[in-house]
């Protein structure tokens, strides 16, 4: 299954390099027979964009899968810990109060906001003791609410132009990524993926409940801290550059689970691949549907993710009814 999904990802990725306002032949890309313009479009526009979508999708997919296992809850997703909202608050603050220039204030502000949220969570994780997963969840919800409130205050002070910039960033986009940003995102995603894969087996034992997992030899405190750090770190970096990419972190793991069952050692890799697949498809649609205009990618991932989630909920409700 993972092989099929990876193959699909590869095909979609190569196609995404060819599709756009300036079409490039697939055969030309594969054979490397490109004109000067084509080469520059590929290297400076399409390739960074593709890599950003891959990194963001993989990161959100794997983080969502890990957090659903950690919280033993099908509704958990990377945004649950409040990191994307904190990033938005940071971006809004720096945009309104420091500099209106998009490239200078947006991503550093978002990174700082997400970083502060991450360290707040980390401090909490280190202080907590027995049965604290629910506490971590509640703190995430509280952080989310606080940042959303702050965001509302700041946007009420923003100018029209600032509001517009902020709104577009918050809807998410993979376009106009510098190679530096792309490298940062890929590194962060890879790090998170490696960290979370190493804990896949512990997350598996957690399916049996925290108490049983502990008696099977899982150290819960360490596990909670590692998963929270890995998810928050990668999500912070991706959100800072791409804005919030909705629903990939929720839909990716669920689709993976439908395909290979609930064992995290199988779900985590597949969730990464499917998350990446969703993001690349959404990105192609974002620039293809209303070309030459561009649609916000965050909205498109939601459009793909919402029907899947609804189908899933209806389906699981039906299964439960059948069981009873």
């Amino acid at each position: 299954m993972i092989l099929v999904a990876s193959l699909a990802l590869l095909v979609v990725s190569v196609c995404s390099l060819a599709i756009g306002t300036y079409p490039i032949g697939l055969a030309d890309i594969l054979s490397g027979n490109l004109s000067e313009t084509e080469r520059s479009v590929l290297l400076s526009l399409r390739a960074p964009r593709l890599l950003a979508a891959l990194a963001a999708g993989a990161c959100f997919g794997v983080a969502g899968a890990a957090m659903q296992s950690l919280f033993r809850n099908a509704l958990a997703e990377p945004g649950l810990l409040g990191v994307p909202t904190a990033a938005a608050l940071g971006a809004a603050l720096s945009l309104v109060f420091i500099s209106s220039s998009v490239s200078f204030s947006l991503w550093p502000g978002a990174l700082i906001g997400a970083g502060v949220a991450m360290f707040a969570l980390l401090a909490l994780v280190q202080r907590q003791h027995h049965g604290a997963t629910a506490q971590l969840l509640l703190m995430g919800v509280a952080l989310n609410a606080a940042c959303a409130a702050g965001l509302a205050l700041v946007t009420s002070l923003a100018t029209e132009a600032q509001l517009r910039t902020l709104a577009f960033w918050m809807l998410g986009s993979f376009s106009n990524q510098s190679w530096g940003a792309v490298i940062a995102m890929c590194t962060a995603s890879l790090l998170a993926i490696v960290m979370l894969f190493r804990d896949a087996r512990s997350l598996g034992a957690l399916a049996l409940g925290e108490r049983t997992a502990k008696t099977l030899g899982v150290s819960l405190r360490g596990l909670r801290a590692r998963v929270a750090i890995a998810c928050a770190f990668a999500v912070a970096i991706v959100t800072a550059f791409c804005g919030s990419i909705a629903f990939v972190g929720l839909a990716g793991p669920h689709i993976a689970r439908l395909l290979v069952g609930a064992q995290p050692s199988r779900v985590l890799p597949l969730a990464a691949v499917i998350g990446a697949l969703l993001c690349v498809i959404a990105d192609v649609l974002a620039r293809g549907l209303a070309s030459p205009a561009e649609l916000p990618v965050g909205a498109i991932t939601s459009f793909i993710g919402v029907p899947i989630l609804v189908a899933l909920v209806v389906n699981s409700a039906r299964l439960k009814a059948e069981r009873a």
Partner: protein
Amino acid sequence: MSQPAVLNVQALSVVRNQSHLIDSLSFSLRAGEVLALLGANGAGKSTLLGALANEFEATSGVIEVNGQPLGVYVAESLAEVRALNAVEPPLAFSLSVFDFVSLGRPFLEPDCEGVLRALDECHAAQWMNRDAASLSSGELLRVQIARSLYQLGDAPNSLWLLDEPLAHLDLAQRDFVLRLLRQVATARRWAIVFSTHEPQDAIAIADQVLLLRRGTAMAFGDPRSVLTNEQLSECYETQVERML
């Protein structure tokens, strides 16, 4: 038989919020022995099992498994010689019975033969591909027991703790589980501790009974001498009349 004790408890106390949940308890259990824990609700049965499982640190006293204090064990190596069956929350995501049992050793590649053997011992192999969330409570208990058998493997001198394994079981299932516990203890040389509310369970399979009352040992010894009408009446603070 004089062999070293698998489980050795010395002056164990658990104090929380100034109330003594377990008060200076001492006993030991050898390989192949089954210990039944009896006592009223809140007498400390689950607390004692939790302390024996190393779920929390006892306030004072010593718990040794195979001669080593619990605190010396790394969590992973303790999991190789000690299993606990207690009430588990419902599964959040569906999991096949095979995967469920293979989680008994979460850090190793699933050993198909071992999982099947454990399921077979519990007469549960026919559910292998079923969704564990769809099992009835009696079926689920058998699968959980299979998971513990797989977790501990064939190693002798293991300690198996079960918190009210027989609650919610019908007569036939009860009988099956009791016989399985007895047979595992004898055949694999494990020490087994289980809690129950039914004195008859203890009489059926236990070598020792620990009668708990408000965290202290009211009586410890062989079932027939401990479980008298007088002792049970005092332990449960109600008139007990039963035929032995």
